[in-house]
């Protein structure tokens, strides 16, 4: 077994970290974290099905990656829409994701776009999520409502998204040229994807771990301290 193969296994198994944490902490989830929970379930199922599809049916599973990219973008953007305060930004987010979904469905009507790895759709999905992360960071800087970033779930999730989607955007931009080239150098590039994927999942797990307790969220009595 080669190093990239080991990394591929570790990366695939990494999907279970956030899933386990999400199951443990699910009682504490606010709406945006519930959407993240749904995303984690979808990504775990996709990972399992795609692995079995490739190993046992010996057939390309690129169409799954294409569908998953759209669903992933939809869920993550909806999650960010929940944390955005500005109503205009919320509206633009909704319009963007609706347009993207319709565009992706329209694009998939052509068989070659659906069956092969769709570089365009994957890249657009990455760009939309990166923009959402930057809007969230900007909102944090404007409001300064978070006392400690290191214990804020959305901060960890955003760091995970920014690292993962910026890295994969570079890979997806060149699509099949880079990812499915026969040369050993281009095959090594998959290593980057596996590492990014693993880091992404670990950071998601950390973020979900810091979800607040129900007691803190439901406390109604106001108190102040001089």
């Amino acid at each position, binding site marked *: 077994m080669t190093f990239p193969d080991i990394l591929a296994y570790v990366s695939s198994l990494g999907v279970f970290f956030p899933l386990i944490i999400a199951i443990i902490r699910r009682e504490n989830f606010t709406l945006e974290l519930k959407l993240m929970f749904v995303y984690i379930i979808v990504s775990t199922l996709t990972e399992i099905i795609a692995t079995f599809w490739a190993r046992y049916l010996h057939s390309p599973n690129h169409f799954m990656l294409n569908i998953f990219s759209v669903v992933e973008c939809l869920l993550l953007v909806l999650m960010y829409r929940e944390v955005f305060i500005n109503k205009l930004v919320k509206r633009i987010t909704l319009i963007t994701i609706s347009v993207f979904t319709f565009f992706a469905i329209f694009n998939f009507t052509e068989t070659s776009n659906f069956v092969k790895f769709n570089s365009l759709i994957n890249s657009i999905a990455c760009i939309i999520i990166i923009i959402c992360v*930057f809007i969230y*960071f900007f909102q*944090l*800087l404007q409001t*300064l409502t978070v006392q400690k*970033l290191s214990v804020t779930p959305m901060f960890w999730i955003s*760091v995970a998204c*920014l*690292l993962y989607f*910026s*890295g994969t*955007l*570079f890979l997806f931009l*060149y699509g099949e*040229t*880079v990812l499915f080239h026969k040369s050993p*150098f281009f095959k090594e*590039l998959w290593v*980057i994807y596996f590492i990014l994927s693993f880091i992404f999942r670990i950071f998601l797990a950390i973020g979900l771990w810091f979800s607040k307790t129900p007691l803190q969220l439901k406390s*109604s*009595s*106001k*108190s*102040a*301290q*001089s």
Partner: protein
Amino acid sequence: MNEVKIVILGTIAMLLPVSAIILFVIVYYRRQRLQRAAHEEALHQAMLEASVGSQEVVRRQIGGDLHDEIGALLSATRMSLSQLNKYSENESKRTLLLGRTEELLNEALHNVRRISKDLMPSTLDEFGLIEALKDFSQKMTLHTNLPIHFTCDLNARYDAKTELALYRSTQELVNNALKHAEAKEIKITLSENNKKLRLEVTDDGKGFDLEAVNQPSRGIGIKNIESRMSLIKGQLKFDVEIGRGSTFIITVPL
């Protein structure tokens, strides 16, 4: 595709988000620090204003008391004394006027003692906080016909600054409850816990909105207490809500 070009692009793609995150965290904490400093400055300014405002209130009160009570009594005494000259030969009238002048002076003296006691209760100086609060709650119950219960299992004296700050804060909180809360009962509890002195003032009144109290235009009462607490490293916590009674807890390290 050129391998070198891909390596360069890949490195940039990795470094950019990492740099963005580091930059974001640095800027965030810097802005947060600046905001905290501005907030502390505003709080300090508010406390200073409250302190000056409080001094003005006390001065006005003393001025009013001296003018209305002592001034009026001394004027009456002067008139009474000037009339003594007129009736220098009428012994019975002189005796009557002297008796009235003595009454006026006694009343003036009594009022001076009362004003002085209001300014600095002698019970607090002589017998300490516990006795002073007991005395205060009994007198207030008598004057207002509202039950003000004081509970304390302690028997100790504390630092003079602490005793005065806690006594004044209790006065402020009880007065607030009487003026604004429409309370039917007020409870004052003094206790010690984990090397901290804990004073709790609760009422069953109509409560108030915390946001309104936190406004810069709010009354000087709470600011005064906060100002006093900052001097003795005490903490004021309050559990309040419109429609239910209020609870104020003051803790002071011993």
